Each structure stands twice: as C-alpha cells, then as structure tokens.
C-alpha cells in the first residue's frame, strides 16, 4: 500500500500529463464519440472565450418570459425489470470521475488546512465539463432524458475523493440541475448557457438558517411582494462557495406563494456575505448571508410567476446529500480495511479480532443499506415517479448511519484516527453535516 501511495505521489507531480491522459481517453471513448462531445466542447471552448465575461451579472436583471414552456428532460423509460446495473455510458462517466477523485483525495489534506481549492484543481474539474451531462440538447447539452442516477453516481464518486470538495465542485452543477428541473423559460434561456462555458459560472443554493431544529419548511427569511419586486429579509448560513458565487438560489417564505426560491444576485444591495468557519467541509468555503431589504424582480422567483413545488426542490437536495454520504462512507470503509489488516497489536493484525472485524462488517452492511435506499429514490425520480417517501427514508437512514460510520472510522484507527495525519477525522467532521445541511447540492 505504501508503494502505491508513492506511485500516486509521483503521478501528481505531473498533474497535467496524467490528466490529459485520462481526459483524452474520455474524449476518445465510445461514449464521448456517440455524444459528439469533442465537437461540442471545441465549439464551446471557442464561444466560451468569446462571451465568457458577462456571466456575473446574469442574475441581476428581469427574466423575460417568451411565454414558452420551459425545457424539461423527459422521464427515463425503463424495461420494468429490477436492475441495478449502470449503463455503459454511466460506467464510462464513473471511471472518469473516479480518476479525478484520486486527485481530490491527494489534495484533501492541504485544502482542509487552507480552506480553499487551488486553481489548478478547479481548472481540471472545469475541463470535465459535467454541465453537458445535465443540460438539454436545446441549450447545447447532451441530454434528452432525466439522468438522476447519473447525477447521484457522479456526486457519490466525487465524495469518495473528498466530501468538502465534492460539495464545492457540485455547487454550481446543483444550481444547474435546479434550473433544468424547475426554471422558467426565461430563467433557463438566461442562465443555462453560462454553465457550458470553459470557466462556468458559480452559483449556490441557500436554504439553511442559523437556528436550532432548523426545518426547510419553517423559514424565518421572508420575501414580501411589493408591486413588481419581492423584498427579502433574513439570514442564511453554511452556504457553500458564497464568495465565489455570481448568484444564489435562496429560499424565503413569501406572503403570497408559500415558500419559494429566488435568484438573488450576489451584488444585490442589502446582501452581505461573510465567511463562516464550520466543523468540517472546509473546501466548500462556507459563508453566512445577511439580507436586509434585498429587492429582486418578481420574475426572479424560480419557476416564474407561479413558483415551484418547493417540497420537490428540497427532495432533490436531500437526495444529493444522501449521495455525498454514500461516497464518503465508502471512502471510510476502503480506508479502514487495509489499516486494520496492517496494524498489529498483541502479535497479530487487529482485524483478526472479532471486535474489530465485526465493526467493519457493520460499516459494510449499513453502507449498502444507505446506498440501496439512495439508488431507489434516484431511480424513481429519474423515471418521473413520486419519490418523496423514498428520499425521506433514504435521508433518515443516511443521516443516522453515515455518522455512525464516520465515528467508527475514527474509532478503528484509535489514536491515529484522532490526528490530522489521517483522513478519518476529516470525514468524521464532514459527515456530521449530512443530517443538517440542505444547501449546496441538488440532483
């Protein structure tokens, strides 16, 4: 294992060389060819550089509706067979992300210390151009049908690399998913293209508020309708990448349409963004947002004049957090197995003892439980079926078991688990967020 570690270290000395190796593999794959990715990406690299700069202010304006129906991805058809296989395309994407996740893992310790992801890693992530796997064809993406299980798999694999970075990297893609799933025609036309540029816009979902027993269904942030604008007041916290975001999808209780989400420009008057230290997830650069009489045009309500079914929006966020939890817990399991086999006490590997071995067996049992409930909820969502109950139960289970697994990960390493030379203490801190956070991720 030590040897492998060294090998990896060597590789990361030449990040671009290895990167291009696998990225080109990806582009040359059957999958990319079928979907014409190379052509598309070349075109957009060009157009991206041409138009790339004006992204930041996209949100500050009125979203004109052409009274067209917004573009929605079709529900995925299935063969009516119980089937847990990923498609060949999904496996291809999975491999690509797994390779990137290795870099995330190698960088994780440093990022945790410096509270930000370095630019080169960001660039590498951007070059994966995951947006194409989310955006409908009409807007230049590759998608016709919903791909919630693909999104789940991507988030899971990213979180296998590092939970905090996964949250940071997927923050923007979550906003994109939300706009594809819920945006009005005007919002889609204005906001989606920026996500396919070479250096795509960052935006972030802001729902959590700093209050005990927080519920996304009981918000203190209020949006009051006055003629053509909503006036928003309140505080949001643990918002990932808020300082890097151009705008937020921010939840507030309206006086006419229940709880809704608003597209709020970061530079709006009355909005202040302050960095916030948290137990973990350092890579995600959490911030607190304070809104004092922030005015947004009424067309900036997500979904347009009628708003959206807010509970469905939340369900996709919870699903995302389940996928993050599964990925990170898999990382814990894969870390403790070689550790317990290599660590000697009383003359033999500690894994020869049932007390240790059974803990690891339980990590596996509960991890598979988390995974299968998450898969079921995602598969139902993808097929356009009601998945409220499934995602609720998946989240209940993931919230409880992932913290157990995080805690046992530290326990299994004993004193080593408690020191920052080993990743398990970071996973312990990161996993505590799963049952708390709604922000940031949306499948």
């Amino acid at each position, binding site marked *: 294992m030590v040897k492998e570690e060294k090998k990896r270290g060597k590789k990361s000395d030449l990040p671009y060389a290895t990167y291009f190796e696998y990225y080109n593999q990806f582009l040359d794959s059957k999958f990319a060819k079928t979907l014409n990715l190379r052509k598309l990406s070349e075109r957009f690299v060009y157009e991206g550089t041409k138009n790339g700069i004006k992204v930041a202010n996209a949100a500050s304006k009125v979203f004109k509706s052409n009274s067209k129906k917004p573009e929605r991805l079709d529900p995925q058809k*299935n*063969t*009516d*067979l*119980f*089937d*847990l*296989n*990923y498609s060949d395309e999904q496996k291809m994407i999975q491999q690509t992300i797994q390779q990137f996740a290795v870099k995330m893992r190698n960088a994780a310790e440093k990022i945790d210390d410096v509270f930000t992801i370095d630019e080169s890693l960001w660039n590498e992530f951007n070059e994966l151009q995951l947006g194409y796997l989310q955006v409908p064809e009409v807007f230049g993406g590759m998608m016709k049908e919903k791909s919630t*299980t693909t999104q789940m798999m991507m988030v899971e694999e990213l979180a296998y690399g590092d939970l905090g970075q996964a949250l940071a990297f997927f923050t923007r893609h979550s906003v994109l998913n939300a706009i594809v799933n819920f945006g009005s025609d005007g919002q889609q036309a204005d906001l989606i293209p920026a996500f396919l540029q070479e250096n795509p816009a960052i935006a972030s979902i802001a729902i959590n508020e700093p209050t005990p*027993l*927080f*519920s*996304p*269904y009981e918000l203190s942030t209020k949006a009051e309708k006055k003629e053509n604008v909503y006036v928003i007041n309140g505080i949001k916290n643990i918002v990932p990448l808020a300082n890097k975001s151009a705008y937020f999808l921010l939840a507030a209780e309206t006086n006419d349409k229940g709880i809704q989400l608003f597209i709020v420009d970061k530079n709006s008057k009355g909005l202040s963004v302050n960095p916030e230290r948290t137990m973990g997830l350092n890579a995600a650069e959490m911030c607190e947002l304070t809104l004092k009489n922030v005015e947004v045009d009424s067309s900036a309500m997500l979904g347009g004049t009628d708003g959206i079914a807010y*509970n469905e929006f*939340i369900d996709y966020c919870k699903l995302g957090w389940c996928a993050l939890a599964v990925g990170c817990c898999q990382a814990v*399991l894969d870390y403790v*197995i070689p550790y*317990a*086999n290599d660590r000697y006490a009383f003359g033999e*590997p500690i*894994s*020869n003892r*049932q007390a240790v*071995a*059974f803990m*690891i*067996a*339980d990590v*596996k*049992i509960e991890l*598979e*439980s*988390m995974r*299968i*409930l998450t*898969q*079921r909820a*995602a*598969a*139902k969502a*993808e*097929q356009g079926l009601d998945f*409220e*109950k*499934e995602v*609720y*139960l*998946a989240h*209940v*289970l993931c*919230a*409880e078991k992932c913290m157990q697994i995080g805690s046992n990960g530290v326990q299994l390493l004993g004193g080593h688990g408690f020191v920052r030379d080993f990743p398990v203490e970071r996973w312990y801190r990161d996993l505590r967020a799963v049952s708390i956070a709604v922000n940031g991720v949306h499948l």
Partner: protein
Amino acid sequence: MNLEIPKKFKGIQNFATIAAKTIFRPISRKYDVEEHTYPVELDLFAAGLNGMNDGSEGSIGGASSKKEDVSDGQVHNGGNMANCINIQAMCYGDVGLLLSIPGQGLGNSAISAVANTEQLKRFSKTWAAMAITEPNCGSDSSAITTTARKEGDFYYLNGEKIFITSGERANAVVVWATLDKEIGKAAIKSFVVEKGTPGMQLVRLEKKLGIRASDTAAIVFTECKVPAENLLGSPEIDIKKGFGGVMETFDNTRPFVASMANGVAEAAIERTKELLQDKINLDYKTPINNVKSVEAEIYKMEAEYEAARLLTLKAAWMADNRKPNSLEASICKAKAARITNQLTLKCVELCSSLGYSYNELLEKWARDSKILDIFEGTQQIQQLIIARRLLRKSSAELK
C-alpha cells in the same frame, strides 16, 4: 436502473398476500397457542400450490430455485426474486405457518442444490426436512459427530440431530453425517433418510419462544440403514472442494430467510401504524428531529425495513443473473434479521399493553422474529462471513 418489483411478479405477490390474509392470519394465533398441533388447513393450500408451481417461474416456499439460462447478456428477474417476493408475502401472514407448508422443507433446497438428475427426479415429490445441528454443534457445522459407515449398498447412520424444522411432519430428512471424523469438513455428506427407515427415532418436539406452528424435532439415528443411492451428490471425499458442496445450500437460502424477516417486519409496521393512526401524522417531509418521538421511530423502522427488503431483492437479483452473491446474501440476512427483531420488539413497546397482549399479533411477531436472527446462520456468523470476505481472511485467521 430500476428498483421496483417488476409487473410480471405482481400476480404472485398478490396471490401470496391474499393467501397470507385469508388463510394464514385467521389461524395464526390458534397454532401459536396449540403448539405441536398439525395445521390441517395447510394441506388443502399446499395441494393448490403444487399444482400452481408446476408451471410458474418461481415457486412458493423454499423448495425450488430452477436454473434458467441467463447467458444472453440481458438482465433477468427470475426464480430467486420470485421466491423472495413470495416468501415475504407469505410471512407477512405467518412465518411459522410458512415453515409448515407441506412439501416446502429446507431439505428440498438442499436436494435441489446438490442432488444429481436421478435423485432430483426420485425426490421431486418428497417433503424433506433438514438435519444439521447436533446437541454439541450449532453454527460450527464442520464439527458434526453423526457418522455414516458404508457396508455393501447401505450407509449406517449413528448420532443425534436437533432443531429439525418439520422433522416429524416431513416424509424425509436430509441428514448431514461424516464418512470419516478424522478428515473433517470434506468428509461431510448429506443423506436423504426417508420416514420410517429402521433405526430412525423421533425423540421429542421442542417447546419454543416463537414459530410455534412449526414443529421442531429431535431425532436419534441408531444403526439407521440408508440406501447408498440416497447420498446426495458425489460419494467421493474431495479434500479440495471440501465443504463447498453442502454450503452451497446456504448461499441459495439466505435471501429466503431474509425475506421471511421482511414479511414479519412489514406486518408489524403496518399493524403498528394502524393502531397508532389517531396519534401520528406521517408527512415524509418534516425533519426527523422535529416530529414526535413515536413518528421518528416509525420513520426509522420504515427506512430500515425498506433497506432490508431492497438488499434482499439485490441478492436475489444477483443470483438470478449468475453473479456471485455470497457476500450480498449474508448482508441481507444479517440486516433483515436484526432489524426485524429490533423493530418487532419496538412495535410491541409503542403499542404498550395492547402490543403485549394476545389480543394482537404484535407480541407473537416479536417472539417469532428472534429465530430469524439465529437459524440459517446467526447474526454473528453472517458478520464473520462478511468480515472475512472484506478483510480477505481465512477462518483460521479471523476465528
């Protein structure tokens, strides 16, 4: 990716659920109270089943897991999954009664797993129970002391077997015995001993915590004379293959036992929700820390149950598609059995003295569920199997 039960199995599921409600539930308490009384109602039911099973993809009970051809590269949902769906629906009725259905013994699973073609045909109408456990050996089945000595065309069996489900009612018992104690596991063979074979004596029926409808026998074999052609599989002692042959039975049946647990869990959760309906409001939205304690308990039980149910279907799906599933079979058995035991006890608690009373079946399910975490490999044995697999340990390293 799809995790819903395919439409083609809805028919069997509905049939089994109706049978569970109309045949099993009405007599559930009766045979719990009258332990050791034969549930005659099942004879008629079994006759109907056997007719139906001849033509269906999956049979009801644990008897057959027909081998289908899956080499076409397509995804298959076959007999293993159908069996799991069936067994769960039946055990939603009553797990003790399911274990008592004539013709559906665990021995039948053993026969279908290791018998040769001639034996399969000869025993196709036999109701076979399974005899492994001995007074001094349970989970460690390699330590069995019952012997089989060959003389001419017969084997002579000597030893005592306990915990034989349907040991009195079945037409035959599949007995594990060793050809040579010195050689160990590899010398263990299974023999079909038909009822009435000289030297086979039923010594008692156990009185139990639960599944009282199912009879559990102890049988002593004294110079019991069994025809040589009743030895299942190969009579040779193959040191390399060793235990593999006989253990295959368990890879096949662990998801079925998990399904039994899932059925009991489903019944208990459903009844608990009915009894509590005026006191709970489940919206599947409010965060779990913001709901009543009883609501939170129910959410947790439902989440655990769904996980167990889906993990069981996963193991069955893998078997149907010829993917090696020994690990997944143990995972689903470990998960389903332990959560069912915990949650049936919790359901009794939530329903207070009503749950504790014979006026409801909740207390019965809480008693029945305990065996599910014990037979076909205890919780701890499943954990051992899982841990050895994950850590790549032999049984000598991880004891």
